[in-house]
């Protein structure tokens, strides 16, 4: 008998693709997608149930379908997606509580997979270069998505204590990035001029959308209880990323960065929460040793490759593509040395 999987948050890109991927898995019999609004994209053979995880109806869905695996991807990152910070917090925190309450009551649920984020580690000047899973944040997030995720993880830990028979996997993802996924980060790097914090150059890590979904799939169909950081190899600096998209940067002194971020937000240009501004100031690195050794997962794309895939897919670097710079270099070289190439 195959698995019956419930996926929350299927109306959004990653949740929808996750449902689709799971329907194609031979070990999965049935996939039930849940969200408050209907999915905008194809979710494959998955059944869609319009249900709000904020109310107890979710328990009936789990009971009726005899769900044994719950994949919680319903935590949303930006108030823009939820229509305001209030309802975002409702969906994230109250939704998780209701979902976990339903899981706790259900005799059939055997596995819980939670898509969390590395932003639970916060960001600040006293951070170690790389966070391992056991480390406590030095600058605990105080607002927004990051704080919601900290609370979600706390409820998940509570659930794991009360239902030790359920295998719980929490995946702390670096920022999802790639050719198709839309996140505050991809909006940020699509701006014509990229505002940066003066005198800081944050280290960023990305996980390619395909890799991230593969990690979630493996956590769902295999058994890997525990908490794991998931990120592509290597880091990329904000300035370096800006050069790769060929966009000029506009430095803003850090005392004003939050105000500028709020203005961008109000104008709907990009979602700069205070957390996001802190992240773009100090950056963050997560250690993925446990992902490799215990979870046994190796992402196909490194962080710089993931970023390049995004740049290529959106054809962003039209101003200064690498070939043009190379041509200029060749011309300058022949001009300066009086011959064609370097030593050749």
């Amino acid at each position, binding site marked *: 008998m195959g698995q019956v999987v419930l996926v929350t948050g299927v109306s959004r890109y990653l949740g929808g693709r996750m449902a689709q991927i799971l329907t194609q898995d031979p070990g999965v019999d049935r996939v039930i997608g849940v969200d408050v609004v209907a999915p905008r994209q194809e979710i494959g053979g998955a059944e869609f149930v319009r249900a709000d995880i904020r109310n107890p109806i979710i328990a009936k869905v789990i009971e009726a379908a005899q769900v044994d695996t719950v994949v919680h991807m319903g935590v949303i990152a930006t108030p823009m997606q939820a229509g305001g910070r209030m309802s975002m917090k409702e969906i994230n925190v109250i939704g998780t509580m209701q979902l976990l309450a339903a899981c706790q009551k259900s005799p059939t649920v055997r596995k819980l997979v939670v898509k969390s984020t590395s932003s639970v580690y916060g960001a600040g*000047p*006293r*951070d*170690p*270069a*790389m966070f*391992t899973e056991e*480390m406590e944040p030095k600058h605990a997030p105080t607002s927004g998505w990051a704080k919601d995720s900290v609370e979600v993880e706390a409820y998940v830990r509570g659930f794991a204590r009360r239902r030790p028979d359920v295998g719980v996997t929490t995946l702390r993802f670096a920022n999802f990035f790639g050719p198709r996924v839309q996140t505050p980060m991809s909006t940020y790097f699509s701006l014509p001029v990229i505002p940066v*914090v*003066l*005198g*800081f*150059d944050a*280290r960023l890590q990305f996980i390619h959308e395909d890799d991230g979904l593969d990690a979630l799939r493996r956590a769902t169909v295999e058994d890997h209880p525990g908490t794991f950081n998931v990120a592509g190899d*290597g*880091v*990329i*600096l904000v*300035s*370096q*990323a*800006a*050069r*790769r998209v060929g966009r000029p940067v506009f430095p803003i*002194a*850090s005392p004003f960065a939050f105000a500028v971020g709020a203005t961008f937000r109000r104008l709907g240009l990009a979602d700069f929460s205070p957390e996001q501004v802190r992240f773009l100031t*100090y*950056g963050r*690195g997560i250690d993925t040793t446990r992902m490799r050794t215990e979870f046994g997962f190796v992402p196909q794309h490194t962080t*710089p490759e993931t970023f390049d895939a995004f740049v290529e897919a959106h054809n962003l670097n039209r101003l*200064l593509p*690498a070939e043009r*710079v*190379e041509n200029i*270099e*060749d*011309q*300058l*070289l*022949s001009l*300066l*040395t009086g*011959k*064609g*190439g*370097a*030593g*050749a």
Partner: protein
Amino acid sequence: MPDARVIPIKGKEPKKKKPATKKSAPRSGARASRSSAAPAVEPQDEATPLPGTEEHVDWDTRVAGALAFLRRRITGEYQVDDFGFDPELTDRILLAPLRPLYKKWFRIETRGLENIPDTGGALLVANHSGTVAVDSMMTQLAIWDHHPAHRHLRMLGADFVFQLPLVGELARKGGHTLACAPDAERLLSSGELVGVWPEGFKGIGKPFSERYKLQRFGRGGFVAAALRTKTPIIPCSIVGAEEIYPIIGNAKLMARLVGAPYFPITPTFPWLGPLGMVPLPSKWIIEFGEPIRTDEFPEGAADDPMLVFDLTDQVRETIQQTLYRLLVARRSVFF
């Protein structure tokens, strides 16, 4: 036909991949290699120079190297490690202005460079002085330019450094990170040469009257890190840095206003304005002592506070004695 000629160098394959050639990249960058990792190109470069045209070729390769560096800067096609270390930028931009200071101004003499291993993790521990951390930057340059293996010194800095705009950014790009146990152990266990100045602000901001008197060596965290990773500790004594900005007073109110740990008053600063920031041209000696092994201690030695204290004292005493010896032998502050 420039395009036709450069084809072998322009190979698309190595450009995309660029493995983490931490050590070789900046050095080979001085050559005309297109990408920082184009090993196939190197032999060609070396084979081309005809006898008698070396000077000309040198100029050409320099120009090509500089242009390739610029191109990588513009396109963002360079590598930084997990700590944000940018080896190419460090070699070409960050360390370059320090070289004349090193050679002409402080006329730095190094001793015992052979005590630094060519490979593998090691922890360099040094005395801190000189109001601003010129001593640590000079030590980094000494090892990068003059050690046979051209190793980068990865230093551990105070959290204050990483709060400051620009300073924090450059520190990360220069290969340095926050002084905390996880970072120290991560660097040491990945085989890096790590530098630590355990006196911290107590050492660097002490009055001139207390020159060459070592302050408390932190809480011995560096010793615990070396014990856990079983890497040797190399005591390093720096003479000359105490005299570059003699601190005769500390404007505490001013320090509190700007949020700094101290605000130095020297015979020339702040009285002469920017001119007061010119360091005195003292003659420096950097001596690297014999490594203290930590791999012979039993497992769990790092959790024995008494052992950690003893070892901390041993390192401190070694540096202090070396300082006295060097000071006695020194002819004058400036020669």
